[in-house]
């Protein structure tokens, strides 16, 4: 039994390992194909990052990780919330506007704004949930549409009610009292690790507890695996769909909060788009497991941040990293599928051996 578990662990590590090797090969081939030097690329990428970049990597990991958890909540339920992008854009804008208006002061302002982000993200995802449960509209199409609507809406509000400064528009700046500091592990000029990054820890632990230690988590996983079986055992799948959609959107609302209160201070040009899609990719990479996603988020953050070094050191353009990330995702889902089939075959063989064994003895 123990040995079997060991093998199961080995098999589940096999897939990401193959995926990483494959994405390294593909990236190398692409770089070589346009006549640049892959060796130079990899040596630049795997150099120890400078302290400033190490701080950046940690901060990015935090945001990507929250995004991955948001995606994973949907995945576990068999829902594809491709709308993280729209949910966190709208939620970040709403929270930044609320925080900038300074109805409250100090920590109360921060807490209330984070609550605003939760509610707005959840509500926006809830539209897709309601359409799915009452009208049978696929959440994939609905959330794609809601993404575009959210981004256009934010653009509209920003242009009409934002603070104009030169060519850029942004929401009102936060009160200095409402920013949340961080830790500077290195010298001051290397930047801070955002204190609100702790949200990621809370979300990660919360996700694990919710899923594995609560009745709700059991219901969620059960309905994700078979809606009809869940229905038969007294779970209302429609309610579960709506709740997990809202929950996923609410967590998505948190994605950019550490950055807002850590360094950005307003919603504007410093807003980082695309984290939603990265989160989906990392959730796939990490197989929706809290630790797996942490590893994935760290890897993606490392690649993204470190790619900035390429512009100085090499003639390889930093966008190559997007290819590496995309290939890693595709490779990991393919290898998971292959490994899963292989494992099923192994188990089938083991079972048939066990069944065949005694009959031979009696015969």
């Amino acid at each position, binding site marked *: 039994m123990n040995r079997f578990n060991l093998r199961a662990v080995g098999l589940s590590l096999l897939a990401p390992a193959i995926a990483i090797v494959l994405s390294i090969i593909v990236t190398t081939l*692409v770089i070589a194909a*346009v006549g*640049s030097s892959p060796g130079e690329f990899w040596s630049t990428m795997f150099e120890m990052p400078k302290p400033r970049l190490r701080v950046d990597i940690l901060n990015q990991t935090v945001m990507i990780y929250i995004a991955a958890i948001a995606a994973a909540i949907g995945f576990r339920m068999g829902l*594809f919330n*491709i709308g993280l992008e729209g949910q966190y854009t709208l939620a970040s804008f709403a929270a930044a506007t609320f925080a900038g208006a300074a109805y409250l002061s100090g920590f109360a302002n921060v807490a209330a704004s984070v609550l605003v982000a939760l509610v707005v993200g959840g509500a926006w995802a809830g539209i897709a949930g309601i*359409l799915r449960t009452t*009208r*049978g*509209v*696929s959440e*994939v*199409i*609905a959330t*794609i*549409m*809601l993404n*575009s*609507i959210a981004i*256009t*809406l934010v*653009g*509209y509000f920003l*242009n*009409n009610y934002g603070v104009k400064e030169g060519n850029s528009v942004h929401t009102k700046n936060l009160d200095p009292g409402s920013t949340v500091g961080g830790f500077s592990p290195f010298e001051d000029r290397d930047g801070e690790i955002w204190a609100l990054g702790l949200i990621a820890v809370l979300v990660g632990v919360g996700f694990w507890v919710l899923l594995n230690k609560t009745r709700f988590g059991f219901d969620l996983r059960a309905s994700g695996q078979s809606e009809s079986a869940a229905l038969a055992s007294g779970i209302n799948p429609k309610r579960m769909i709506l709740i997990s959609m809202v929950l996923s959107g609410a967590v998505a609302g948190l994605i950019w909060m550490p950055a807002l209160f850590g360094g950005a201070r307003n919603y504007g040009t410093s807003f980082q788009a695309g984290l939603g*899609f990265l989160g*989906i*990719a990392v959730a*796939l990479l990490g197989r929706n497991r809290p630790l797996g996603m942490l590893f994935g988020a760290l890897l993606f953050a490392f690649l993204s941040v470190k790619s900035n070094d390429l512009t100085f050191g090499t003639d*390889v*353009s930093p*966008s*190559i*990293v*997007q*290819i*590496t*990330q*995309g*290939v890693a*995702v*595709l490779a990991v*889902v*393919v290898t998971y*599928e*292959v490994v899963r*089939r292989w494992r099923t075959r192994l188990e089938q063989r083991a079972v048939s051996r066990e069944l065949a064994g005694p009959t031979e003895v009696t015969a």
Partner: protein
Amino acid sequence: MSTATVQKRGIVERVSKSWLYIGLIGIGLVSFVRIITDTNDLTAAGTIRAAIIATCPILAAALGGLWAERAGVVNIGLEGQMILGTWGAAFFTYHYGPWVGILGAALLGLIGGLLHAIATISFGVDHIVSGVAINLIGAGVATYLAEAIFSDYEGGGPRQLNGLEAPAQITIPGVSDLAKDIADQHWFFVSDVAAFIQAMTTNISTLSLLIFALVVVSAVVLWRTSFGLRLRSCGENPQAAETLGVNVYRYKYIAVLISGALAGIGGGFLALVASSGFSTGQTGGRGYIGLAAMIFGNWRPGGLLAGALTFGYTDSLRLRDTQSVHSLLLVVAIGLLAFAAWRAYRRQVRGAVTVAVVGVAVMAWFLLTDAVPREFTVMTPYVTTLFVLALGAQRLRMPAADGAQYRRGSAG
């Protein structure tokens, strides 16, 4: 056998007839609003021309979606394949001229399709997951290759390549002039149709005509040939198809490859016709809109053409003056109220009330304001899609085994 074909033909005729009626009523309505609000721009040949240009990429992507989904594969990767197409069109046009460029766009899209086919058909990966990955890869590859290659080209930079030769334009002299004369009279209905003919016969890109022709070709191939029947059977019931000797894998592969190539052509249109050259990010989610147009059109060629035209028309409006967009609200309001009346006549009370409420709201918006913010017109295709899906999702019928996993030998 013979009664079956007669019956089938009857259905086809009825369906195309109802599309014809809807089209005629639509033109009449727009024409009516044009006259009472005095916004001739609403159906000016220039407007229609812009609408056709905005329609073509969406149409090509929607067709791509149709091919894949009819064979049972959901292709969310259309966006990525389109992006690959923009790069392919730019690269091959730069070296070999526009027609090779279009082939290049199709080729790059096809490579994206191949990737999707391998992942979903051979390895049984979830279709949407694979599509998302392909969108990431497509965007990455196009950006990287553009930065690595186009920077050294004449008219190029890390993010664009300008000065590409466009495919030829066609004008049919007699028809074009006659249509222009009639359109300039601003008569009810007749002039609107004439303006459409004018736009279709004056300086129209051959690539636009090609894409429209591809809709007809797709419809004929998918619904009128045994090849198409087999292909569609893979989307409806692959197990049954397999027991009848259809090589399901092969048909699915062919369908997804064609799907990618069509999306690539759509991308090529963006780079060669719709704008003056390649730039990164120029697809702007049109692959997704194409997918929405196809769903809007109930997985049928006529329907997706209507969907693509609707989205293309609203998409082109953001370039026009806000006055005509405002008049369009009246069109929508009257349309919704008429739809509500029809539903009430059919005794679908709840639906009728919902539609009527929205119709009244839009009417109020028209009466109480003078202009529509530009951002709102950008949103129109997305809101329309949600609305149509919310109202009509129960009446839409996608291929029965669409998006389902299929393994060779799983029948019986």
